[in-house]
């Protein structure tokens, strides 16, 4: 299938950097938007002369940032509002599919204008799978930094939690919270869904003067990831991740292992934030196409494919020691084109 001349497209190795760029941009936007709102409130109050010096700094810097793009900041800046839970991106209303599911579960009614705002994310999830978790989620940004902190702690000899639990638990969390929503009379998922929490807590901290209750919960999940399981909340508990995994089950864009180029080094398994098994073709519905394994693969054996289903386990990689030992006994010199499992 792959001859030595048809190397994978060279940019694919750098997609992981692009992903970090995307995560950082989303996070910075969540920080920027509350400052823009403060700027708008200062304008609305015609209050420049009454501002504290620190508020004047906010006013001036936001004016400098936004002046090239808007003529009437008090109203024009409303085109950029909200969080990843539900927001307005340059005038386009977007909502989290989980917000839609939670709202339908709570009220039992379908509100079509709200469904329309969730259509683009749902469509993208059907095509790309759980990409939100790896590419957009502001909580993911902090969780991955938390993973890095965990590896530093391990390097200096402290133990971090490495437990493995059942990944099916998060589907249970999803269904229980959706079922509880009508009983509690509110959209209960919003209270335990980290991206929604992070978005609004950043807003609270900047615009309303301090963190709220959700920050405590989020700090708890960070501790859970450090002390119990690496990236444990996303892997085992997150209701949003469960919903995206279900939506992305038959996604078109998948990462696949080219068995001829694989040398069984297992770096992909070590780097996978979601505890999947790329070494044995075990991607499944929970792969979020984050491309960390592509970036780390020394032989470029992981590539993107347009296919609705994963390939079955194709055995040890052809560049690996195990495969070569078996095949050198059989037919010494012929390089394996098909895998002989």
């Amino acid at each position, binding site marked *: 299938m792959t001859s030595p001349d048809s190397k994978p497209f060279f940019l694919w190795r750098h997609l992981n950097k692009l992903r970090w760029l995307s995560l950082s941009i989303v996070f910075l936007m969540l920080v920027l938007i509350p400052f823009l709102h403060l700027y708008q409130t200062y304008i609305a109050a015609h209050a420049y002369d009454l501002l504290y010096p620190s508020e004047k700094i906010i006013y001036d810097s936001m004016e400098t940032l936004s002046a090239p793009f808007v003529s009437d900041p008090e109203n024009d800046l409303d085109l950029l509002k909200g969080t990843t839970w539900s927001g307005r991106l340059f005038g386009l209303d977007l909502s989290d599919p989980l917000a839609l599911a939670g709202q339908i579960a709570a009220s039992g009614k379908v509100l079509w204008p709200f469904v329309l705002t969730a259509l683009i994310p749902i469509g993208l999830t059907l095509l790309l799978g759980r990409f939100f978790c790896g590419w957009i989620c502001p909580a993911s940004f902090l969780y991955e930094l938390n993973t890095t902190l965990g590896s530093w702690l391990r390097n200096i000899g402290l133990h971090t939690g490495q437990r493995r639990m059942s990944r099916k638990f998060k589907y249970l969390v999803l269904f229980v919270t959706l079922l509880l929503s009508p009983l509690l009379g509110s959209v209960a998922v919003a209270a335990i869904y980290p991206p929604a929490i992070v978005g609004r807590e950043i807003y609270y901290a900047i615009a309303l003067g301090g963190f709220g209750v959700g920050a*405590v919960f989020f700090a708890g999940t960070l501790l859970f990831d450090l002390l119990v399981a690496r990236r444990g909340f996303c892997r085992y508990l997150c209701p949003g991740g469960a919903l995206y995994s279900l939506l992305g089950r038959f996604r078109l864009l998948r990462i696949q292992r080219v068995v001829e180029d694989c040398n069984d080094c297992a770096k992909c398994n070590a780097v996978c934030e979601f505890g999947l098994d790329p070494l044995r073709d075990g991607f499944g519905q929970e792969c979020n196409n984050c491309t960390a394994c592509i970036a780390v693969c020394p032989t470029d054996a992981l590539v993107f494919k347009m296919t609705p289903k994963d390939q079955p386990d194709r055995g040890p990689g052809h560049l690996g020691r195990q495969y070569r030992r078996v095949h050198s006994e059989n037919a010494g010199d012929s390089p394996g084109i098909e895998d002989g499992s």
Partner: protein
Amino acid sequence: MDRRKVIQRIALGVASLSAAGIPYGLSRLLAPDRLTTSKIHYLRPPGALSDTTAFNEACIGCGLCGEVCPPKSIRFSDREGGSRLNTPFIDPAKKGCILCGKCMEVCPTDALTEVDRKDVEMGIAQIDRTACYPWVDRGVCGACVVVCPLGEHAIGFDFANMYRPVVKKGCVGCGVCVEVCPHPSLPIRIAERGSSTVVVHQI
């Protein structure tokens, strides 16, 4: 799986669930529980569904209404230690609503439905005539009348004394008058419209 293991699993699950509840309980203990203990009637933003249950079920807690509010009068019960999830409310004593309509326009779930500013039903203002300065003949004021965004349909002066404010039928309960009232014990309260209750003035 034998029985002992099942019981162990269940016990572990219960233990981890209650452990997961500890941060929430701690935060509830630490947060000021103002919404549940105080008797002040907090307002929903304009255009909110009149049925409280329907509102709580429709609101996804995204906070967009607060993010577009020009005077930052919309605040969130999640942050202020309320019992409900992240639903918006207005405390007119801090900041009243200027009825600009941005929150109704931005709400993605129509928990805040767009209505004309004259048809907003947040409540109705009631003035305690035993505390209001002009009503007890302790000076002239009229701040509430001057600041009302709906003008003479909502609040005006008494016929006999031109500094004594009187609430009229057009009042929608935006609460700007509560915000500006100079009396320290806030003689103006926003009462629920139609409940025909007279607000008891507390000092």
